[in-house]
């Protein structure tokens, strides 16, 4: 597995490192806040949290611009934040309010912002593969150097769309990167039970594309591997399958008692594997960021999420008339 120990030569710029640290904190604070607000009964519907997996969305999206596309999953908040979606709009969306990014019609499972290249969280496991392939077709046809990243979970790797999507992208040499977030659980089913292959990355062999397994808690490792894959895709060399091994801090959905986790697994949620702590240590050890800079970002992030909550709670519920709008384009 690729880790930052082997990747010391990769240099993040100070600007990028600041963005990375702030983005990871924004995701963590956003999710921890939702965790509290959901249990307080403030948020309707289902909420699937990303906390603990921040290094993946952040490390990948650090290589993307608004002209690039991503497709996301049930657990999509982290991808949205890393892709640059407005945090206030996201919070209002999850609260089901009029100022939500999708006017309160999508909610947590469908947040999207096409202008930012975010083609949607997805309520269907495996739904993102073909859509990312389609974005790759557009990019190849328009020859505009955009890439599409398909984020998916270990559970989705057993859907037919995984195989069809990768096969199409590989055979057509499309600029699509498939990023598996292997957090160990497909809903409540451990991967050791449901997957016949030892790793997801191994499956790349079947499609004759690179398959790389990386420590998904290690921002620098994810960033480096993603950069290489994205550079390859932009150069017309086709897709890469990246498996990021991580851990899901919370349950499948909020309110899930996680009875399917063994006591050992529950204890295996160690601080020393926390992606944010790991990056902080890395940034200090490598004189990339100062403690003062880090502290300042931590405070800024807390404030940003507090603002987002205020924005959401002050936003009105959607007007009744909007029930029937936007079903069809004019």
């Amino acid at each position: 597995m690729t880790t930052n120990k082997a990747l010391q030569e990769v240099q993040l710029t100070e600007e990028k490192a600041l963005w990375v640290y702030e983005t990871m904190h924004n995701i963590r604070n956003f999710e921890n806040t939702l965790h509290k607000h959901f249990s307080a009964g403030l948020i309707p519907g289902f909420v699937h949290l990303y906390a603990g997996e921040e290094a993946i969305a952040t490390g990948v999206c650090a290589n993307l611009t608004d002209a690039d596309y991503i497709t996301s999953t049930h657990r999509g908040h982290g991808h949205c934040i890393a892709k640059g979606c407005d945090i206030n709009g996201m919070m209002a969306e999850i609260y089901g309010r009029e100022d939500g990014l999708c006017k309160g019609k999508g909610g947590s499972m469908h947040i999207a912002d096409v202008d930012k290249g975010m083609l949607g969280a997805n309520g269907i496991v495996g739904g993102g593969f073909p859509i990312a392939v389609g974005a790759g077709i557009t990019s190849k046809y328009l020859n505009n150097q955009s890439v599409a990243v398909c984020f998916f979970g270990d559970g989705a790797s057993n859907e037919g769309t995984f195989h069809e999507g990768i096969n199409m992208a590989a055979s057509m040499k499309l600029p699509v990167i498939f990023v598996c977030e292997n957090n160990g659980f497909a809903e409540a089913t451990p991967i050791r039970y449901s997957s016949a292959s030892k790793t997801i990355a191994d499956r790349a062999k079947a499609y004759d594309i690179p398959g790389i397994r990386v420590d998904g808690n290690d921002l620098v490792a994810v960033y480096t591997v993603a950069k290489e894959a994205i550079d390859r895709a932009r150069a017309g060399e086709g897709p890469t399958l990246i498996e990021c091994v991580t851990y899901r801090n919370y349950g499948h959905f909020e309110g899930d008692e996680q009875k399917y986790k063994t006591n050992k697994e529950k204890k295996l949620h160690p601080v020393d594997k926390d992606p944010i702590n790991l990056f902080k240590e890395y940034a200090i050890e490598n004189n990339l960021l100062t403690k003062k800079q880090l502290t300042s970002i931590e405070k800024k992030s807390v404030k940003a999420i507090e603002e987002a909550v205020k924005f959401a709670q002050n936003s009105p519920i959607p007007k009744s008339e909007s029930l029937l709008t936007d079903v069809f384009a004019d």
Partner: protein
Amino acid sequence: MTRKITMMQAINEAMQIAMENDDKVILMGEDIAGGAKVDGFDQEDAWGGVFGVTKGLVQQFGRERVIDTPISENGYIGAAVGAAATGLRPVAELMFNDFIGFCLDMILCQGSKMRYMFGGKAQIPLTIRTTHGAGASAAAQHSQSLYGMFGAIPGVKVVVPSNPYTAKGLLLSAIEDNNLVIYSEDKTLYGIKGEVPEEYYKVEIGKAHIERVGSDLTIVTIGKMLYVGLEVADKLAEEGIEVEVIDLLTVAPWDQETVLESVKKTGRLIVIDEANPHNNTATDIASVIGDRAFDYLDGPIKTVCAPNCPVPFATNLEELYIPNAEKVLKVADELIFDLKKVK
């Protein structure tokens, strides 16, 4: 200038014109270029789709715009949704509508709902061309008529052309529409000929066409059922009964006003639909007209549909399956017996 061409030629011509007019229009599907223009393949022409509807287009527009996909319906119909969401106007060919089982998610949960779920920010200008209809002894997995099922999905428009003229005009409308449009071709109509203008024209989506004016009975038809309706109208005309025949053309959203006005005039309605009989377009029309025109009706609304069984293979059984003039006349007799006495 018009000339007589086949329905297949009319559909092909519509795609050619759309591609000439807009370079964002691309075609995707299984065997639609059929190997032509592939390195090492020495034939100038190949399949052009399993029915040959896209024949010649790869020669004109190249493989960048006429994309052969793997046999991967879920993959490429979804890719067409993704390409539409990111700026192209794909026309995806789904060889038989029966294959929808593989890729329904991409229509049911993705393409049809992205605009709504995303608060109006997404646009999915996607046309899915597919085929339906029994009559080719293709049996249960290649003969179904599923347009009504697609029409039940909010965010999807469904059109069913009946002849070469409507086929060309409806396809040009579908490709220019900014929504997901399913364009369903009856495979047994490909060879029929009709007058078609050479130039660009559109047939409006959502508007039914009154094919024959009458005052005694309204018959609404979908696709090939138009010809059954016209046969019935001819037969009843011999007895002095004037039938109004409406070619529905668009199954979703269907033209309520045209049907309503006709029923107000005639007081009697039969809907002919080749789909299986429950929860299909005919039952929807019956429900809406029963609700909106009850006071005008002189008898029950009748539907003539396929029976509630899969499409059979044996020729004689398949003939029994498809609605025909005989079946419609039987139903019509129940509705117009009083008129017959008068006339």
